[in-house]
């Protein structure tokens, strides 16, 4: 069995479950809308960062990305679905790789499009702080946003494969993103910089002064994601269906 048919099947699964394209649409809509709102009243904060303000919709928007990753995997653990999946694709490693590819590619593409739209919305707003950004900074923001959203989506997907439950994943990640990271996140220059979400978000800032830069920050997030994927892949390969 080659990889392409398995990937095709996994892609069809994502397309044919209404909630999954819905989550990607929500990712786009929420991120763009909140970015536009933030751009409209930004500028007074002394720590104002025009790039991050323009992309700040990603903070609520990433919850849609997490839901997408978690739901795409947890739909396999409804009823006897996983048994049927593995009966159709007994090479579990190959199946897991196909699943993650089918999740990663749309997340990356939607992330990129969302970032472009958020920047465009920022430019349209009255603040127009975005005008002060160089093309390079904007490009980094767009790429960083796409890669960050893909990584955080895969992080949720890997965790769901490990826990075999979307509810469990969401109830770990969403409080983490909303509370833990938010509360201790202000303690910049500490271990908080190395949290999966904080590290990757450095790429969305115009200026940064911590240990990590934009690309090293994304690398740290990628390491978290790799760990979640390894754990999830291990669970898929080792455990009885």
């Amino acid at each position, binding site marked *: 069995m080659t990889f392409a*048919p398995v990937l095709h099947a996994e892609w069809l699964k994502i397309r044919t479950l209404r*909630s999954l394209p819905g989550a990607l649409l929500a990712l786009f809509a929420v991120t763009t809308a909140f970015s536009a709102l933030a751009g409209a009243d930004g500028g007074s904060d002394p720590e104002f960062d025009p790039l991050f303000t323009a992309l700040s919709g990603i903070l609520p928007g990433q919850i849609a990305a997490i839901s997408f990753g978690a739901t795409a995997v947890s739909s396999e653990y409804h*009823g006897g679905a996983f*048994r*049927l999946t*593995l009966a159709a694709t007994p090479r579990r490693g190959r199946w897991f790789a196909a699943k993650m590819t089918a999740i990663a590619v749309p997340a990356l593409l939607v992330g990129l499009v969302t970032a472009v739209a958020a920047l465009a919305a920022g430019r349209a707003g009255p603040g127009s702080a975005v005008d002060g950004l160089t093309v390079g900074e904007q490009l980094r923001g767009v790429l960083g946003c796409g890669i960050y959203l893909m990584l955080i989506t895969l992080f949720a997907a890997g965790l769901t494969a490990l826990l075999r439950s979307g509810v469990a994943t969401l109830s770990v990640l969403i409080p983490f993103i909303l509370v833990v990271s938010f509360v201790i996140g202000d303690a910049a220059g500490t271990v908080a910089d190395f949290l999966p979400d904080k590290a990757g978000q450095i790429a969305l800032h115009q200026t940064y002064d911590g240990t990590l830069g934009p690309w090293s920050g994304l690398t740290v997030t990628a390491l978290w994601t790799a760990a979640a994927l390894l754990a999830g892949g291990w669970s898929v390969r080792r455990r*009885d269906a």
Partner: protein
Amino acid sequence: MTSIEVQALTKEFGSRRAVDDLTFTVLPGRVTGFLGPNGAGKSTTMRLVLGLDRPTSGTATLGGRPYATLREPLRHVGALLDAGAAHGSRTARDHLRVLAAGNRIPSARVDEVLEETGLASVARRRVKTYSLGMRQRLGIAAALLGDPEVVMLDEPSNGLDPEGIVWVRDLTRRLAGEGRTVLVSSHLMNETASFADHLVVLGRGRLLADTPMREFIDARVRPSVRIRTTDAVALTTALARHGHDAVQHDDGHWTVHHARVDDIGRIASEAHVPLLELAAEEGTLEQAYFDLTATEAEFTTRPTQPQHQPQGA
């Protein structure tokens, strides 16, 4: 053609042995009924054959190959394990399209099996609107999708209406008639008796029987004969002379236990007993099954229960 070979298969969940040193072969061209009470290990065995669970020891192969080594396995083996396998928010057609895509099965085949299982008119409805019987049909459609040589159905009649049960019976007979290997698990005896040629019986994860169905019944249940007559005295006298006992029932008919209809007919005829009715009462699979489980009573009944009343627990 491909057979299912189970060799010294054992599966432990913690300290519990769900499948205990099981060895049997399911051959093509006939329907093999897979019998046993709930929890006997039927579903576990099927999962082991499909490589979904790892055996503690032993092997399960299809035509000599482990399931996991099959290229595009749905083209070789079709299985219904669980009517809940289809996601409720997907349409039946999409559910089958996904399976077809992963095994490079032409999508025209999706519409064929939907037609065959009577779901064509509801194929674009979401599965969560389906009744249990419709989900069961969808599960069977998925099993047939790759036109496989081996078909395994776990409790296919679950939730089906009487028409559906007849349909499953005809389907399994037809598949076996086409030379396929057909394994159908059930805990319904009359149901199994209506389609099986061969039986594999499990109890507590162990193999209790692996025989043709007719032999299984004949070896365990001696047939009896049903008679109605206008001259009860002549009948009982004639039977007594040949060492047969007859038991009269409330509605007036008699039963001669442990007798063959040919013998009883000849006896009655020679004694000029006027007969209104003479019929063989063949042993049923249910009787044979309970006889088997009674002999395995130490496994099937609690010590406090009388041993002659196995409930098939």
